[in-house]
Structures are given as C-alpha cells and as structure tokens.
C-alpha cells in the first residue's frame, strides 16, 4: 500500500496537498467475517507488518530491537500510545535493524522515488517542507493529547515527516506509516534512500510489507502479536514479500515505512529530515540523527535509550519524562505503533487469531498487504467487540487512545503510565511480547498488562484504538498549522474546522465562507459518478470572521453598479481575464467578452494583469462586497431600514412559566443592542411589539404618547395590522413608552386563563406590519403551544409514536397543512424573516410550525418544559445573540459556476421559487447553505472549476449590498487526486443534509441505507481505483476520508435518523431543521461531540480531547462534553476530592448538585480556567449550551451516554467498531 499509494500520493501531493495527501489505509479483519482486516495507511503499512510478522520470531528480534524503541514509544504514548509505540518501536527497531539492512536496498529505492517523485506530495515532500514546523506541531498533537512531548515526538515524526505530505498518511494510519516507516526507515533507510529511485518499487514492495505486517499487527498488536504468530507468515510474507515476518519486519516495514518517511523527509525536507527522522527512527542510529527530527528525534534517542533501558518501567518512564524525545521515538513508534497498535489490536486477536485469527488475518492481511496494519488492526479490534471474534485487541487502543487520554493522563502519571500503557497494550503487547524474550525484560510490566486484562476482552474485539481516531486526526491537523492559510493556491484544502488558523485571502474565499467537499473535482461526470464523492460546497455567506481577519471590503462602482459579464452576469472577480490592453474582459465563467466601462478602464502590465489589480478588492480577493444600486432593489426603490417585531405568547402557559416576564425584562436591555453597522451610531432598526393568545394585541408605542396603547385584533381569520405609525418605532425616541409597555405586559396578563393560541395569524400580523411599513425585517416569535384556536393555520395533535418506523413516518416531517408554505412564500417576498422560540410542554408540531422559520432563513429555538430558573440563562443568551447578531435581509443568493459544472441543489434555510435563486428573507452570520454541484460537461485540468456565490442583501442599516465569494478548485483526471483533496467534515455536512431532506419523502431506513451505500461506494471506489491491490479482508481508507465511517455512523445514529424511545417527533423535526442550516464546524461537533478530560488544566491550551466512548472515561476523572447544543460535565464516581473542591467547592461526590446549570464561582485557578473554558465554548457556538452536570451512574448519565457516539447507542445505533466492520463488508460486497 504505502508504496503504491505513496507513489501516487507523492505525485499528487506535489500539487500542494502537502498536508493531507497521504492516503490512509486501514485494515479490518472481521472477526465475524473471518477475514481479518488489515488496514493500513499506505505508507504506514510497513510498520504494522513488522509487528505482525515479528510476532514469533520476529517479535522477539524485532521487538528486541524495538524494545529499545518501544520504550520510548511507549513512553510518549504512555497509555494509548504505548501500544502503538510498542508496535512502532518494535517495528522500528525491529525493522530498523533488519530493515535497514534488508530494506535498504529495496526501500532505498522506494524512498528515493518517493522523495523524488512525491517529494512534496507524500510524506516526504510535504513533511519535508512542513516537517520542520510540523514535526513540532505534529508532535504536540500526538503528544498533544497526551501531553507529552514524548508522544508528540512520535506523532510528530510520523506526522512530521508525513506531516506535510504524509502527515496525512501518518495520521491516517497514523501509526502505521509513521511508526513504521519513520522509525525503521529512518535509520535503516537513510542509506536506502539514495536508492530511492526504486521508490515506487520500494513502495510497492515496502508498503505491502509494511502493511502486511502492519495488518497483521494491525490485526491488533494482537495481529502483530497474534498475526505474527499465525498471520505473520502469510501477511507478513505477503507484505513483506519475501521477508515475511522477520525479514519483512525489519526490511520491509522499515523500507516501506522508512522509505516513505525517508522518501518523504528526504524529498521534502530532504535528507536532513529524512536522515534525522530516519536516523532517529533508526532508533539507536536515528538518535544520532535526531537532530533533524529535531526535538523528536533527540527525544528519541534519549527515549530509546530510555526505552532500551526503558523497557523497564522506570526507564520508560524516564523516557517519557524525557517524553518528548521519546516521543520522537514514539513518534516513530507511533508509526510503528500504529502498526503496533494495529499490531496491538491484532495481537489480541492475534493471540487467538494467532491460531485461528492469525490465519484469518494473514489471509486478509496478506492480501491487503498494503493495509496498514495499524489501522486495520484497530478496525479489527473495533469490529471484534461486537463480534468478539476478532481478536479483540484491547490493545489496539494504544494507538489512538494513547494520544488522547493517556497522553494526558500519562504525562502526570508517567510511571503509572507505563502501567497504564501496558494495560492497553497489554493485550497486544503482552501477548506479543510475552513471548518475546527481549521484551520481557523491558516490558515486564507490559506483559503483565497484556496478560491480564487485554487477553480476555481483547481477544474478542477489534481494538478501538486501532481504528482511525477523530481525535488523532484533529490533533494532527492542528499540529500542521502554524502559519496563515492562504487561499491563493487553487485546489488546496484548508485546515479542518477544528483547527484554529488564520486566513489570508488571496483570491479564493476563505474557508470560513466556503468549504468544499472536494478541492479536486473529477474532470468528468463519469468519474464523479464512479467515485460517488458528493461535489458540494458549504457556503456561509455572512460568516463572522475573527478579529484578526479583515471583513470583506466594500466596493462602490458608482451609479452604474458592479461590473458584470454581459452574458452570465457574473460579477467582476480575480478570474476575469482582461484582454485587448484592458479594454475588454473575458468572463471566466462563460467566456463571453465584455467591454470594460470607461470609468473602469485600466492598463495591463506585461503579464496581462491590470495595473491596479492589487488596489481593487474585486480583482485580487476571493470575498468582497459591492454597493448595490437602485437597480438591485425591490421595486427599484432603495430599501428602508429593517424592523424587528417581537411577538410574545401571553397564554396561560407562557405566563405561568415566567416566560413573559423574562422576555419583557430582557427586551428592555436588548433594545440597546440592536444590530448596527457603525458601533458609534444608534441602530436604525425599528421595533414593534405584539402579544397574543387567541387574539393578537398590538401596541402603539409612539414617542408622543404618555402611555402605550394596546390594540386588540380578534379577527384572526383575516389578519391585518391595526396601526402603522406608532407600531414600528425608533427605540431611542420611544424608549420611555416601550419600557412602560414592557413593564406592564406581564402584569396585564398575570391573571390570564386563556390557554389556546394561534400561530398563523401571528406571523401574518408581523408580515402585514412589514408590508405596511414597506420594509424587510425579522419576527421574533415566542410561542408555547400547539395552535388549536380557530384560525388559519390551526393544527391538530398528530403525534403518534406508532407511526415511527413505518412508511407513514415521513409524513410527520411534512407540514400538516399547506397554509404555512403559502405564508412562508409571502414572507420571503416581503423579506420577513421569522425566528421562532418555542417553549413547549407537549407536542407542538415543529415540523409544521418550523416551516416558516426554515423557509425564511430564520431559526427555531426550542426549550422543552421551560422553567425560568433553569432555562432562563440559555434562552436569554440565545435571544441576545439572535437579536444582536449581524444579519442581512431580503437576500437572494445565486451561485454561478464555470462551464462544465452547475449548482443543482441547495440545502439550508431558505426558499426557492426557481431553480437557481436562493431566496432568504433573512440571512445571519450562522446560516450556511450547502450547494451541490453536478457536471454538465467535461472539465479541464488547466482551468479548473470556478464558482461564484453572489448574495444580494440589505444590511441592518438598510443598505443594499452584494457580497461575492469566489472559489476555484482543481480538476483531476485521476481519482486518486480526488480522494486526496477532499474534506470529510464537509462531506458529512452534505450527506447529513441530504439525508435529512430525504426523510421527508422516504422511509427513514431507506435513507440510512442510501447513506451507507453511498459511503461504501465511495470507499470501494477508492479501494478499487486508488489503493494498491491487497487482500479483500483489508479495509483500506483514503487518508482524507478515514473518518468517514465514524462520522457517517454518527449521522446514521443521530436522533433524526434513528430515534430512541425517548425522542419525540418534535425533537426530530427540530433537529432536522436545525441541521439544515448548519455549517461544517456545527455539524462536526454536533455529530461527533468534543469530549475533554479535565483532570488537568494548565496554561492556555486546551486539553486534548478524548474519543467519545465510555471506555475513555476514567472513573477518577471529570470530563467536559460539547455537542454544539449541550454541554455536559461528567464527574466520575471516584474523582479526586481535590478536583471536586476545585470545581464544585465540595469535597463529596454525593453533594454535587446535578441540577446546577453553572459552576460555582470559586477562587482557584482550576475553577477559573474551567469556567473560562466553558465560556469560550459557548462563545464559539451560535446557540448557548446549557451546562448539565452528570454524575457517574446517575440517572442523567443516560443522556450523556447518548452522545458517546463511538459506543453502541441505546436506540440501536451501531458502535464505531461494529459499523466499521459493516462498512467493510459492504465495501467488500461492492468489490466482489
């Protein structure tokens, strides 16, 4: 794998996908299926292989050598890492030595090739370039989680090398690649590199081996271990080719891995790195080189030594302490680890497998060879759980886990860590190592670990640690970013949404505005169909930018308005080609030639660029705004400033729950904070107030009145607005009257007994008011109950749980009456955006009530069983934000594309009256629109594909503007390029929206199947066309999509698609509508919650998240989980007193009040930091997240567990591991 892909990668990478280029492979062996999977990242593979094969003979030898390495590796990983590291180390060492020797040649060539060819691309190149930085970064990441430099190093290296390029690969296989190649390769390969040329061959050769090995290892450490035993032969053999076990390990693994690494490093970084890395990898040898790796390596050396000595717990610890360095090693190890992990995972299985599994694995693995052992193994392990069959390598975790929890934990625990590690790895290692003589010494502890726990459980499951870890990927990505992301390079994928980075607009829209699923579009529709990768962009036109990035410039082209192409009407942008000395320009979208208006004329320089190119935003930037002329306004009239109308339900429920008084109180303050463009001036937004139950009450708050006047409209059947002047007023002028009104409203209705409400007329009222005032605006509706009063839009209670899961279920997502669709249309025509705040105590039919908000670009907020005390804060914060956030009105969005593709479908909160214009009555900074593209012709690789999203809107001060976002992406004729330049998070965003629209018309199950099917096709296509041939039992995932399965699984088991018993229809409809306008970062955290361990909070950096699985929670810990909607603070049952004192101010677990919604304000650094942390989380999200304190084993824990998305869910959702296995099965079916 690694080889092949690497090559491919390498080649591709040059394009600039340095960061993620590497393809990841993961292998899975299905316990159940029998086939073991072997996975690996292409490049990584090597690592695994070593382990697996090593097992028996190798193991020892390999390990032995590794040992030295391992220790270090372990060290870094501490907990989780260990496994990987072990693996890695082992491999590394093992390979290193051997490989160095054997591989050298082979590897050498490969590397060379890599270097040369891929240089940039693959690990090599990218890493190279980036290496320096990345390594560090990467290291951090790795360790990140962990903590430790140690880890970091390890990762870093992996990443580092690969990082730029390979990082991906590394990341992907994480372990495999990195560990394997780097370590081993590093040292041993260094020489080989020279031979690199062979790279390709090398890769092929190398990779396979590595993979094979990896796979086996992957099988879990078990595989390694196990595999080694049984599998090793086969897999290893295959992988390694001849070398199989030992030979392979050393030689191949190293080669591959090394090669890659080497190659990568060499190429990119070049020798320095490579050498270093390599050298470092080369454990001992590497140490010397370490310098290159810089820290990592150095660390390594030490670690290694440590390791070597390390083996012994203490040493290892020491190493850890030195961590960083070890890390480096670790890093290597990591790669190795991956394998190791894989191995680890495998191992577990291994053991068993060794016997049976092994055979299986071998088989599977061998075929896959490529499959990075590391991944595969994890997967295997993953699946196992369910299937038990698999060699549940408990150990697998080492790789993944280590990074996360362990990393963190370990740091502190170092000593313990070792212990910790062992545990995880134990299984794998234990087994594996157990046998190993050499290890015994060093690992003594480990064996123990391994022996004890791991063994039993491990054997039956796929090691979750061995399967791709979102945390790992996120951390890796973070590590890579150390300089601003510039948008000038076409086809370059931006950092992940979880990474904080700065953007420099150099001609393409910032990823904050536009994110694409693929930055390399297939040239033909056939390719697109074949790959099934959705081509879509998630556009958030008014996204808020961080303070250090300039908002789009405002361009005024004077009375004639923006310069546009005559034919397609595209707006002037950097892609327009000026010709004839600047007198004309050729449209980049439709090729039509248009005269340049005289006032816009400018000479061209010798390159054909306009001289003023850099003085004009529209010629040099990806995002900018035009001032629209009167031609762009409704009725050819400049718009009035918008108005906000607050419509408050004052029926019995609303009054009793305290809602009315809360809203009224808050509005008094909010009115000072209406959106404005110029912070100095008062907002020009006018406001109006309406209360209602069965009838509507309008208020005249004209400034000249001493008292507000209430106007009751009971004619709800035929709504109208009773007054104009005095209804919408300027806050500053009417302040006294408004305050008097808001004071009186709660009193007036304090004794109300009216329980029935209307809803349709309420929106009509607001709409009519805006119509009468001839302006756009926003309605804030605060509503409590199902509108059953006699009026248009009256609804029936149609909630029927029995329908769930039947064919009729879909009808429940559709509006009950068509009234609201018509109303929504009218609202959009007027630019009336509706935000709905719901406070239901029972079914309110959100599917119907939400129609208008969703169609008008509004939001629905829901506070079920609203109680003033506990929900007030959340509601008020939402309200504040909703009122204050920047918003545009009466917007029309049009996406233009260059010839060859076309925007065919749109997802989000809006209305479309034709097929091209997206109409948004209101568009705020949180709303994203997902646009799907389809081919209608062939694209060319030279010109790439262009899209221009123009949004015409009215600002909150009543100015008509056009915001333009331009995006250029590459086009590719090789599928591999596509897979290398796509973004899983965005794909998930698209798929989830696609699915949620699907359930309107299809059976939910059918929708889920469609998703799975599409995902399988995507991966199968990759496997078929881009991955090097390998065993069918291996699951091979592209690096950029290695998280696709886990994320997709999260989508599939989300409440909407797979409701649990306690999920109401309203909840589902609510979420459905919520998701429809989420952007990528929203969907990301929504589907895969962020879970932070809080045992230690130091400095400004966040603790590294852990994976969302119960297994990752430590009884003694406290965790913070963020889902974008909820915030949980999970407190373990045996948490330290000191921690409790710090957080809650109480020493006893039982005294924690789980009803609290905010942490007590305590004067200690920990509490302060934690509260800051929570505040910062809240600030990041568009909706306020209420904090729920969840005590372990408390009843409320069920809710919390629901969000541990990698676990099996109570509603029947598959665990990650299970799903991965299933996915693998699907893929295999497609392939066969």
């Amino acid at each position, binding site marked *: 794998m690694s080889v092949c892909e690497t090559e491919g990668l390498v080649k591709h990478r040059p394009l600039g996908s340095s960061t993620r280029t590497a393809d990841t492979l993961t292998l899975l062996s299905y316990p159940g299926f029998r086939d073991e999977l072997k996975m690996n990242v292409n490049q990584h593979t090597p690592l695994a292989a070593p382990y697996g094969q090593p097992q028996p003979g190798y193991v020892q030898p390999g390990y032995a050598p590794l040992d030295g390495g391992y220790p270090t590796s372990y060290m870094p990983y501490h907990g989780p890492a260990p496994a990987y590291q072990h693996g890695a180390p082992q491999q590394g060492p093992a390979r290193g030595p051997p490989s160095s020797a054997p591989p050298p040649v082979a590897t050498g060539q490969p590397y060379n090739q890599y270097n040369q060819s891929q240089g940039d691309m693959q690990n090599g190149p990218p890493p190279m370039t980036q290496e320096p930085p990345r390594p560090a970064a990467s290291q951090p990441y790795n360790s990140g989680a962990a903590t430790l430099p140690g880890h970091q190093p390890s990762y870093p290296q992996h990443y580092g090398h690969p990082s730029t390029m390979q990082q991906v690969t590394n990341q992907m296989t994480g372990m495999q690649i990195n560990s394997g190649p780097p370590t081993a390769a590093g040292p041993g390969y260094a020489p080989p590199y020279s031979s690199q040329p062979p790279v390709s061959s090398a890769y092929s050769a190398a990779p396979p081996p590595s993979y094979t090995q990896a796979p086996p290892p992957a099988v879990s450490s078990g595989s390694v271990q196990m595999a080694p035993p049984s599998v090793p032969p086969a897999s290893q053999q295959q992988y390694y080719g001849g070398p199989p076990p030992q030979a392979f390990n050393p030689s191949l693994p190293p080669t591959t891995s090394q090669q890659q690494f080497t190659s990568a490093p060499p190429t990119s970084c070049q020798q320095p790195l490579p050498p270093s890395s390599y050298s470092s990898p080369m454990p001992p040898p590497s140490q010397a080189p370490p310098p290159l790796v810089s820290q990592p390596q150095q660390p390594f050396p030490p670690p290694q030594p440590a390791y070597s000595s390390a083996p012994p717990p203490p040493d290892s610890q020491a190493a850890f302490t030195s961590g960083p360095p070890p890390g480096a090693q670790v890093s290597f190890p990591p790669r190795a680890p991956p394998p190791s992990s894989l191995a680890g995972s495998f191992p577990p299985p291994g053991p068993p497998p060794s016997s049976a599994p092994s055979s299986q694995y071998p088989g599977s693995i061998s075929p896959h060879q490529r499959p990075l052992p590391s991944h595969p193994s994890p997967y295997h392990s993953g699946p196992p759980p369910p299937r038990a069959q698999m060699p549940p390598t408990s150990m697998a975790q080492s790789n993944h886990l280590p990074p996360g929890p362990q990393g963190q934990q370990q740091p502190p625990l170092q000593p313990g860590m070792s212990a910790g590690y062992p545990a995880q790895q134990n299984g794998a290692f234990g087994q594996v190592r157990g046998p190993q003589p050499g290890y015994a010494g060093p690992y003594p502890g480990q064996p123990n670990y391994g022996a004890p726990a791991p063994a039993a459980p491990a054997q039956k499951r796929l090691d979750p640690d061995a399967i791709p870890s979102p945390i790992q990927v996120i951390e890796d990505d973070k590590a890579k970013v150390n300089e601003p992301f510039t948008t000038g390079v076409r086809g370059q994928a931006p950092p992940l949404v979880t990474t904080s980075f700065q953007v420099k607009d150099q001609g393409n829209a910032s990823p904050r505005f536009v994110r694409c699923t693929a930055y390399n579009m297939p040239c033909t529709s056939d390719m697109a169909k074949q790959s099934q990768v959705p081509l879509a962009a998630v556009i958030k036109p008014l996204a808020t930018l961080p303070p250090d990035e300039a908002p789009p410039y405002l361009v005024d082209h004077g009375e004639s308005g923006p310069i546009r192409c005559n034919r397609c009407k595209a707006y002037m942008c950097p892609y327009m080609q000026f010709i004839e000395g600047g007198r004309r320009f050729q449209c980049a979208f439709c090729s039509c030639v248009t005269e340049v208006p005289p006032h816009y004329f400018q000479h061209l320089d010798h390159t054909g660029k306009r001289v003023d190119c850099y003085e004009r935003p529209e010629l040099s930037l990806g995002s900018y705004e035009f001032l629209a002329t009167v031609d762009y306004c409704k009725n050819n009239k400049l718009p009035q400033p918008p108005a906000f109308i607050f419509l408050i339900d004052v029926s019995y429920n609303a009054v009793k729950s305290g809602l009315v008084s809360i809203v009224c109180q808050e509005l008094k303050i909010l009115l000072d904070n209406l959106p404005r463009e110029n912070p100095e001036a008062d907002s020009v937004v006018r406001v109006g107030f309406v209360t209602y139950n069965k*009838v509507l*009450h*309008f*208020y*005249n708050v*004209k400034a000249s*009145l*001493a*008292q*507000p*006047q*209430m*106007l*009751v*409209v*009971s*004619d709800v059947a*035929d709504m*109208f607005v*009773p*007054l*104009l*002047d*005095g209804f919408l007023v300027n806050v500053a002028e009417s302040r006294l009257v408004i305050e008097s*009104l808001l004071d*009186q409203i709660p*009193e*007036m209705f304090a004794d109300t007994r009216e329980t029935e409400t209307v809803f349709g007329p309420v929106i009509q009222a607001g709409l009519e008011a805006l119509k*009468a005032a001839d302006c756009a605006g926003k309605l804030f509706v605060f509503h409590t109950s199902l509108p059953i009063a006699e009026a248009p839009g009256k609804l029936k209670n149609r909630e029927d749980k029995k329908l769930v899961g039947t064919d009729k279920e879909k009808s429940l997502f559709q509006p009950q009456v068509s009234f609201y669709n018509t109303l929504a249309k009218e609202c959009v025509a007027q630019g009336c955006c509706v935000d709905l705040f719901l406070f239901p105590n029972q079914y309110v039919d959100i599917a119907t009530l939400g129609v208008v908000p969703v169609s008008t670009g509004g939001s629905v907020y829901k506070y079920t069983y609203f109680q003033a005390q506990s929900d007030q804060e959340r509601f008020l914060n939402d309200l504040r934000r909703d009122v204050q956030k920047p918003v545009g009105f009466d917007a029309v969005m049009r996406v233009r594309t260059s010839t060859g593709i076309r925007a065919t479908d749109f997802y989000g909160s809006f209305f479309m009256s034709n097929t091209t214009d997206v109409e948004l009555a209101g568009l705020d900074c949180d709303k994203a629109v997902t646009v799907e593209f389809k081919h209608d012709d062939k694209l060319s690789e030279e010109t790439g594909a262009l899209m221009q999203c123009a949004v015409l809107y009215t600002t909150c001060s009543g100015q008509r503007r056009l915001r333009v976002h331009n995006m250029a992406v590459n086009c590719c004729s090789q599928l591999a390029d596509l897979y290398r330049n796509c973004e899983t998070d965005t794909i998930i965003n698209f798929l989830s929206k696609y699915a949620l629209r699907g359930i309107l018309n299809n059976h939910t199950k059918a929708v889920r199947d469609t998703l799975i099917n599409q995902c399988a096709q995507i991966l199968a296509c990759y496997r078929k066309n881009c991955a090097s041939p390998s065993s069918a039992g291996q699951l091979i995932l592209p690096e950029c999509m290695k998280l696709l399965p886990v994320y997709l699984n999260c989508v599939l088991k989300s409440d909407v698609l797979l409701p649990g018993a306690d999920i109401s229809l309203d909840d589902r409809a609510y979420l459905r509508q919520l998701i429809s306008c989420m952007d990528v970062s929203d969907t990301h955290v929504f589907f895969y919650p962020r879970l932070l361990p809080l045992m230690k909070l130091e400095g400004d950096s966040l603790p590294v998240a852990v994976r969302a699985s119960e297994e990752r929670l430590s009884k003694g810990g406290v965790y913070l989980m963020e889902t974008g909607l909820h915030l949980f603070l999970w407190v373990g049952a045996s948490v330290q007193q000191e921690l409790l004192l710090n957080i809650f101010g109480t020493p006893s677990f039982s005294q924690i009040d789980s009803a609290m919604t905010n942490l007590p304000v305590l004067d200690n650094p920990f509490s302060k930091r934690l509260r800051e942390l929570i505040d910062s989380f809240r600030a990041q999200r568009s909706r306020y997240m209420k904090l729920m304190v969840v005590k372990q084993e408390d009843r409320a824990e069920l809710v919390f567990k629901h969000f541990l998305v990698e676990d099996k869910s109570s509603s029947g959702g598959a665990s990650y591991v299970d799903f991965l296995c299933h996915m693998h099965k699907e893929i295999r079916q497609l392939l066969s």
Partner: protein
Amino acid sequence: MSTYQEFIQQNEDRDGVRFSWNLWPSSRLEATRLVVPVSCLFTPLKERPDLPPVQYEPVLCSRANCKAVLNPLCQVDFRAKIWACNFCFQRNPFPPSYAGISEANQPAELMPQFSTIEYIVQRGTPAPLIFLYVVDTCLEEEDLQALKESLQMSLSLLPPNALVGLITFGRMVQVHELSCEGIAKSYVFRGTKDLSAKQIQEMLGLSKPMASGQQGRPVAPQDASAFCRFLQPVHRVDMNLTDLLGELQRDPWPVPQGKRPLRSTGVALSVAVGLLEGTFPNTGARVMLFIGGPPTQGPGMVVGDELKTPIRSWHDIQKDNARHLKKATKYYEALANRSAVNGHSIDIYACALDQTGLLEMKCLSNLTGGHIVMGDSFNTSLFKQTFQRVFSKDYNGDFRMAFGGVLEVKTSRELKVCGAIGPCVSLNAKGSSVSENVSERTFNINHNAPVPQGGRGAVQFVTQYQHSNTQRRIRVTTIARNWADAQSQIQHIESSFDQEAAAVLMARLGVFRAESEEGPDVLRWLDRQLIRLFMFHMRRSPFLQVFNNSPDESSYYRHHFVRQDLTQSLIMIQPILYSYSFYGPPEPVLLDSSSILPDRILLMDTFFQLVIFHGETIAQWRKAGYQEMAEYENFKQLLQAPLDDAQEILQTRFPMPRYVDTEHGGSQARFLLSKVNPSQTHNNLYAWGQETGAPILTDDVSLQVFMDHLKKLAVSSSA
C-alpha cells in the same frame, strides 16, 4: 265660541296634534276628493311642563287585539265599575285599585283635560342611558382637536350614571376598552370586512361561551360587567376617557397623494350596532357618529379613495352612475333597522366641506330617530353649539330626549292608519309603528268604513319610551273629531281646514315621494296636487329641488323637514324675511327681490340659515365706519338690531342654523338671493324700470308668473 284657529292652537298646545281637517269626511270617496288627505302632525313627546306624570300604570282594554288605554272618551259605569272601550266597544271592569272611583272621584285619565296623559311604569330595572361615540379620526388636526374638545366637554353634560363608549375609526375601527388601567386598550377591526353581529360580539369577547347555561342567571351580572369594558358609567371613567380622547391621534395610516383617507364608517357603525345589540338590546342608547368625510372603504363605502373620482352628484344619480349608492344605502338601511329594533338611535354629525355620504346614511337617523347635523368643520360654532344643544335639559333638568320609544296608534273602526312619515320604522305589527326619540311625525289616516253621521272618530297614540331619567313611561294621547258629510256639510269641512298643517303635510308627502321617486315626477305630482295651494316656495325649496344642492344637502334638509314641528316646517318652506330701516320698527316683508333695497338691513331665517343682509347704502356706511361715530349712534343701533334678533333665534334652534352676515354684492348674499321671489330678473329688469329691489339672475319663474299660471290652470281645470 272659539274659532277654529283657537281650537287648533289649543289642540296643538295640549296634545301636540294638528290635523289637516278638523272635521272628517265620512267616507273614503269624499276624503279622496278633498285632495289633501285626512292626516295629522303629531308630536308625541311634546314638552308639557304642566303635565305631571301619574305614578301608576295605564288601564288597558282587555280585548287582545285592542289594548287601548282608558281615556276621557270612554263611557264609564261608575256603579258597575265598568268602562267601555271607545275603539272596540269592549266592556272592561276596572282593576281592583280603581275600586274607589266615582263620578266625583275620577282618575286623571278620565278627565277631559287629560286627553294627553303620561304614566310612569315601574316595571323592570331602570337601564342607564347609553352614549356610544363613534369618531372618525381621518380629520384635519384642527378639526380633530375641536372634536376632541367637544367630546370631552360632552362628558360633563352626561348624567353620572350614563354609560359611555368610544369607537374610533379611520382605516381601522377601534373599540376602546374603558375599564382598564394603565395601558389604553382597544379592539381593532379591519375596515373592509363586513362582520355579522355574532362575529363582532365574539371578537369583542362578549359572547361568553354558553356552556354555563344553567348558571346563566347568576352569571349574568358578571357578564354585564364584561360588557362594561366598553361601556362604562361616566363617573367611573370620566378621567380615563378624557385622557383617552385627549390622546386620540389622527388616523396613523399615511394617505398617499391623490387619495382620500380610508374611512371605514360602515364597519364602525356595524361594530357599534353589534356592540349595543349584544350588550344592551332593548335599552335606550344613542350612537353618535362624527364624520369628517365620506366612507371610502369596506361595506357602506360611498366613494372610492381615488380623489380623481368625485363623489356622486345628483347628476350621477340620475344617470344611474353612482356605483356605490344602492349598495351603501341598503347596507345602512339594514343597520338602521337592526338598531331601531333594539331601540338604539343613531346621530350623524357630519362636518366637511365636501359631501360625507349623508344621502346613503340618512336612513340611520331617519329610521332610528337620530339627529343629523351637517357643518363645514367641527371647529365651527355651528357644530359646537349644536352638539351642546343635543344635551340641553328641560325644566326638570332632564335631557330633551327619550329612548326606545314605541308608538302605537289606535283608531276607531272607521279609520285606518295608512302610514307614517317621520323618524320611525314600522314594527310590522298591525296598526302600530315604532320609533325613538320622537319629535314630530305625520300620519296619514285613511278611512276604513263609513261612519254614522254625527258620530266621532277617535285616534289614540300610545307612546312607550324610556325617559332620559331612565324611567319607563307611557304617554297616551286620545283625540276625537267629528264626522261630517261632505255632501251636506262641505262648508263646515272647509272651515275646519288647517291651511298651515295642510301645507306642511303636503310638503312632507311631497318630500316622501321625492325620496322614493324620480324628481320631475314629484314636481309634476305636486303641481297637480297644489293647484289650489300656494306652494310656490315649496317648489323652489331644497326639499324638492336638487339643483344647486348636493345629494347630501338634500338629504339633510329633508331629514329636518320631516321632523320639525309645524312652525319650523313652515319657515323651511317659506323663509321669513325681516326688514330693518330707519323708517320704522323691523317689519316682515315679502320674500321678494323687491324687498332688497339699498337702505335696508334684511334678516332672513330659512331655518337652516340665518342671513343678515346689509343693503348697498348701509354697507357703504358701515364700511365708512359711521357706526363708530357718536353722532351716528342710531346707525349703530340699526346695525345691532338684526344681530340681536338673530342671536335670539340661534339660541333656541336645533340644529344651529348657519349664520351669515353679508352685504350687498357680497359672495354670501347668494343665500338670500336664491330664496327671494325673482320678481325682477335680468329678463324683466328694464321692463319694470324701477329702482326698487335687486335683480336676480335666474331663469326661475317669479311668483307672479307662477300665480298667473296657477290661476289659469285652476280656472281651466275647474271649467
């Protein structure tokens, strides 16, 4: 023996009745030949300071379809304690309370001088008076301000326990809730939607779910208090309402150029009627509508809001070109009928320079006994004083208004009521009609059966009403007249002819016909009918002539014409002209252009207008300021004299006439010139060659010509 003149005068003073014939021909045929029908002008609630009401209930004839009230014309058997009804001849025993009667001890109703008697009925709880203001807010700022002040002032004139309500309208209709404190609350209705009474009541929250049917009784009082959100006793909401009125804004909806403001008068009235109907049916109430322009939207709209479409004129109406006329009229008639049935009257106070749609809306007042007042602006003394006069009090300190009147007319067998003209609406009950706030009406009585000679025919008017002090009262007037055989007693009959009454009656008949028939036809009919009468001025009056009058004005004049008493009606027909000069005391002069002399001051009273006209010389003197000079004190007095007289008239008349002070050649002199007999016109001016009088530029025939023609006709016809 008194003359017929005195008899008539006495009858009018006592009973408020004037018959055209005071001897009745004994057969229908004869009656028909008399041309002027046997009919009377009756003022049901004529003020009778000398008539103390009795504190018991009337005694009724026991015959179910008669129910006549015991009266002085009945034969009474004091011993048997039995009385015989003079209408149906049923013999009725006296009720036990009359046990003590004897010839010496007769109850008041049997005494001849009490042919009109008033009973106070103690039944039921006295319902308070209800005043519901319906105010147009599409007014000029100045007008609205004046109106607000008038309304605020009126509150102080109301009895403290009277209920008041406020509805304002413009583009929307707002029903103001008066009970709430703090925020002023009002219910709003769309001005374009015709709502049924039930819908209105539902929307106002008046129709409490009848679920509590069983407990309906005890709950009722509470419900009443719920109604009271809109109708509150003056003493309780005085301040509140004053503030509310003070804060009344002009209709806040912008009026684009070239458009009329949108005025939902129709819906506002519908809501007002619906509100009262739902809350206080059959209780006296007065809806007072103040409008400053025509209804321009919704049901009852009279003209569209486009200014380029002028409001209908007589010309349009004759050409059948008035789009909204029929629909609007029908709409308002329906409202008026509903309102009348519930005993609620509707006043219209229309103040605008242009027409306001009185033509369509007149039935509101005509059928319910409401007032119509027309002026140019609310900011004029005409409106202010008129409005104030609505609340004028009688010698008892009670309002000169009554509510919810039901007038029954009972006649001897020989007679039958064939109709009534006046502010009333038929209840469709046999032989009875109903109306409110009765002031004056005309009855046409037709013969039913031949009567024995020498007998007497009798007519009894039974008016049940709610007095303004909230008492329920019944006033009974019984009148008898002798029959006479037209063959033999023609002289008697002739001598019993009441010329004035006949003139007014004929004029009203004419107006009534004019309302329902084509104009020229009516004139022709009148010409035929009037051959023997001097109805010259009638022909020229605005009641029949629509030329120079807008439909609204015509409606207004006619409205008043059919409800004023005889004297006033005569003034309307033939305006009075006084002349002031140095040559003697003021003297009435002919309403003729020859009366217009340079050295005279003329005072003309047409009921609707009061014109002071200074002759050419006088005007020049006045201009020169002679009146300021001590030596011309007499001139000053001369100038002052008509002013004082005019003031006197202004003080007493309702509605206030338009007061015009003008001079020879002044633009306003047209008011005078249009009334006088055009004995001198541009056609005959030189022919007459005299210096007297002023020529009138008109083609109308002069009285002289008319009379000549009339004589010729009369002669030829009789021949």
